[in-house]
């Protein structure tokens, strides 16, 4: 009993510490990346190359005055950032960081809880993401906040549909909803050089999922919820100091969790990157570390892609955004699903 509890605790702490520890680095990379793309310098005063800037930011968030406006609904106003962060963290619980391994006489699964319904759980948890935003907008009792929250919510639910169709297509292809089975189906090579990733099987589904996670995490080009020119800051307009920081953290953790799901479904999850097998063959003891590194590199590239897109594409207009979701991506997803099913059916004939 004690051993089981210890195992759960260790897993929980590790799975929480990895993204939370990476958070300041990601934010720093985003700011430096933005500066790089705009030919600016970016934060470079605090510490060497500005590396200590994230720490300074955290300290600033903690010591800032907490403005608690009088017109808000106090309980929900305080609860909203907590709900947003907790809901963003929840999907991380079923994302495996490496293959199951043998230790202490039993198999240890490197995710917080092991269930073959893991992927359903992750999507259910990320479907709740809109509540923190909706609650913040409503509790703030401000027109900008309310409108931003409604927009964000409508946008998130619209893109969730096309995202779900691509997940159905992938589950159908793999024939299983167990994350480990999905990943082991993606290890190996076609023709000796092309990794067996899902993205090569289902490029359309991968595209839908990619667009979907941009909309779900409210990032540019879909950050209508906080379009500065019209809504000032959107749903977190009335928030300050740590409360604002929690929303900020929730957005980035949501990004990490959704990227991890994308990588599990389409880029082989923790399966080794091409080239790393050579090291793994020489030293099998390093396999777990190499898997963790592979997953980390994939997520880092994904995050860099987020930053890259942010400074490349302009923001959509709201009606165009909804039209794209409902009239382009949803039929595309359905058509993709039908074609996939028919293809599999006739191939087996």
């Amino acid at each position, binding site marked *: 009993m004690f051993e089981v509890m210890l195992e759960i605790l260790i897993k929980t702490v590790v799975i929480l510490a990895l993204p939370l520890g990476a958070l300041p680095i990601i934010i720093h990379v985003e700011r430096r990346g933005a500066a790089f793309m705009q030919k600016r310098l970016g934060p470079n005063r605090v510490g060497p190359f500005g590396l200590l800037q994230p720490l300074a930011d955290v300290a600033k968030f903690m010591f800032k005055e907490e403005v608690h406006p009088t017109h808000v609904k106090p309980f929900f106003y305080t609860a909203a950032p907590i709900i947003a962060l907790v809901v963003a963290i929840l999907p991380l619980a079923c994302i495996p960081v490496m293959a199951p391994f043998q230790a202490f006489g039993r198999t240890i699964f490197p995710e917080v809880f092991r269930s073959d319904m893991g992927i359903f759980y992750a999507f259910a948890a990320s479907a*709740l993401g809109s509540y923190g935003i909706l*609650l913040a907008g409503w509790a703030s009792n401000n027109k900008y906040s309310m409108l931003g929250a409604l927009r964000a919510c409508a946008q998130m639910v619209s893109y969730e549909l096309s995202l779900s169709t691509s997940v159905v297509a992938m589950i159908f292809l793999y024939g299983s909803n167990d994350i480990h089975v999905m990943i082991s189906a993606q290890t190996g090579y076609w023709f000796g050089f092309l990794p067996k990733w899902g993205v090569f099987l289902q490029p359309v589904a991968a595209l839908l999922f990619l667009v979907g996670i941009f909309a779900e995490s409210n990032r540019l080009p879909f950050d209508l919820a906080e379009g500065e020119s019209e809504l000032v800051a959107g749903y977190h307009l009335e928030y300050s100091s740590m409360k604002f920081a929690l929303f900020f953290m929730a957005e980035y953790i949501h990004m990490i969790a959704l990227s991890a799901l994308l990588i599990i479904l389409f880029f082989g999850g923790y399966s080794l990157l091409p080239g790393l097998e050579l090291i793994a063959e020489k030293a099998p003891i390093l396999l777990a570390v190499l898997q963790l590194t592979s997953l980390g590199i994939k997520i880092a590239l994904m995050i860099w892609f987020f930053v890259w897109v942010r400074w490349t594409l302009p923001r959509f207009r709201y009606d165009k955004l909804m039209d794209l979701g409902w009239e382009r991506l949803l039929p595309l997803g359905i058509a993709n699903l039908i074609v996939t099913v028919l293809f599999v059916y006739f191939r087996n004939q």
Partner: protein
Amino acid sequence: MVADVFLTILTVAFALMVVFSKKTVVSAFALLMTLLSLAMIFFQLGTVFLSAVQVLVNAGAIAILFVFVMMLINLEQFGNNREKSKVKLVISTFTVLVVLGVFALVINNNIDSLSVVNLTDNSMKALFDKLFNSYFLPFEMATVLLLAAIVASVVIATHEKDESIEQMEILKAEEKL
């Protein structure tokens, strides 16, 4: 056992909040929390798929719908009053007693013979097989029901565009003048 009692208390508290809260928006959020704690109970009972579906459909979509409607209708003008009518009180007491009586009868007669069967992960596959064999026709009929709901809700919610709310308000304002 502790988890059972804790989850029950949680659910009961939120359910009471749904009925007795003064503000309808608070009721809606309490309903959301009730549905989520029900999902946790499903999870604890081992039906992870149903728990995920409960979160996706009931908590993820239905509760959002309620909140949206509350944003659409200006609820500040409506209090959340409960009616005080003696006829209703008598009828409802009678109904609740009948429901509880039937329930107690069923539970008391069968609870000893109800053996707890452990549903393992394999049962999920059996569940899906059953859904697409014995329950195939009801499943397809359910999609027809959904189609009917889609058509009905779009038609009902969008008809009579001339009488939109804003124009009604303009008319009211003119009447006052």
